[in-house]
């Protein structure tokens, strides 16, 4: 096992940027660009959006522990699903929300997989958890106080993708 490198913010940003870019470019054919790091809010909640959101969540457990939330607005989530599965608008309407949930869950799984593979290779072996989906409008996610939060915004050809990373601090 390689000697563990300290997980700095720069490292987290590098891994998540690479993961988001790889996944959206390979699977959706779109190239997201890192746009901003959300200002440190002292672990406070991620600002609520008024637009319907689909949020994929996958955790990683091992020598690094945490959760990654991938926020997409519903319209973009639908576009990603159509692209991923080669479906038309009508086919997607017929298939229903379950298909969108599964597709965004898988995109999140791949993204968090890429992120945590970076952590593993830096000496922090960990495993993925099974994805879950949050849906809704005007909601916020509150972390527990012991978690460190990093929020990164990506611009994906006019759509916003937000990676919200909560990492458990060493005890």
């Amino acid at each position, binding site marked *: *096992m390689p000697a563990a490198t300290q997980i700095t913010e720069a490292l987290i940003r590098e891994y998540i940027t690479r993961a988001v870019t*790889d*996944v959206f470019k*390979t*699977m959706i054919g779109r190239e997201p660009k890192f746009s901003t790091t959300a200002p440190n809010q002292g672990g406070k909640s991620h600002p609520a959006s008024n637009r319907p959101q689909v949020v994929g969540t996958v955790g990683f457990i091992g020598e690094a522990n945490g959760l990654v939330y991938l926020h997409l607005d519903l319209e973009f989530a639908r576009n990603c699903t159509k692209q*991923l*599965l*080669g479906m038309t608008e009508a086919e997607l309407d017929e298939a229903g929300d379950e*298909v969108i949930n*599964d*597709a965004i*869950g*898988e995109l999140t*799984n*791949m993204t*968090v*997989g*890429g992120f*945590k*593979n970076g*952590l*593993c*290779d830096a000496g922090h*072996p960990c*495993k*993925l*958890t*099974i*994805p879950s989906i949050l849906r809704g409008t005007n909601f916020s996610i509150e972390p527990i106080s012991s978690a460190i939060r990093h929020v990164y915004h990506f611009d994906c050809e006019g759509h916003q993708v937000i990676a919200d990373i909560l990492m458990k601090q060493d005890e």
Partner: protein
Amino acid sequence: MRYKVLTVDDSKTVRIIVKKAFKPFDVEILEAANGVEGLAIAAKETPDLILLDVTMPVMDGVEMLTKLKSDAALKAIPVMMLTAEGGRDHVLKIAKIGVRDYLVKPFKEEVLIEKCSRVIDLKPVNEGPAKAKSIFDPADILIVEDKPAIVQQIQDGLKHTPWRMRGVSTQGEALDAVTKAPPDVIIVSLSLPEEAAFTLFRLIRTNVKTKYTPVFALVVKTETTQQQQAQTVGFSAIITKPIDMGELETKIAKAMNLDTSQRYYATEGTIMVMRLPEVCSPAVIAEAVTYLKPKFAEAVDSGINKIVIDIHQIKSLHMGIIKLLFQAMQTCRDLAMHFALVGNPQIISECKGFEDTRGWTFYDSLDEAKNNLGKGPAVSTPQMATVE
């Protein structure tokens, strides 16, 4: 034999993507949402390849793989991991249990297919004529030749066909073209520098999309060593320079398994017309003979009992044509069909010179033959060669 591929993934999305990727190939896709289902289907169906995820509920991929490899009946089934778990240590741990390949998500469908094709021999759903069916259908021909004059010569020589012909001059351009849109036939000049033609041929054959695409070698007639080398390597056909365009067209049509009968046989109203072209090479005669009996029988079967044999385009007779005409007339007699011949003064004159053809009667136009067909006896027996 139809290959079976089992995809074991809790994500329906991934299973759909896998199915989509394999759609162009003659493969049956089996699905399982976790390791328990995966083992049950593997035992029941004995798939030829398993694509296995790691993180799954009920039973994860590592446990399923371990159980699979400890089962004497299942351990020989090749397994390819398809997972987001790509950390070095993790990959090494799984590799030790025994996997054929490891593909980390996200993945491109082409990469998945390319890796799978190393394990199973993927064949397109419709082998042989993938797109074109008859000589009137469009088809894509890629010409890989660094001499623009040769490309132009082929384009000019085959411009009467509906085929789209594109020329590229290097191996790199050819690979780009083949990857973007696999053509129906590829013609590669063996005179490309540094044996690039043979390297290109190998790359074409290892690409799953072009594995079965006919590849012709284009070579100077006197370069017999290169021709032998091309045959040994497995080129589909050899085309020699100077190019005989008729031969090239015939070979392309044959390679694409096109129905070329319409070149010689057509139904016009209630009459079938058998037409021979101006140049009747041995290849043309052989092609016309191949279709003769089936086409005549097809006409009778659909209620047509009149045939015009039109050879007015032919400049000069030879034994191959005479034999073909005898065979056509005999087939008409066997099927109790009326027939008439259409010729030109040169042909009629030449017919008078042969004992066997001296009695043939010709009309000088198709319309005249059509109008007079059936007015005589049921089976025409030409008496004298005359211009009507």
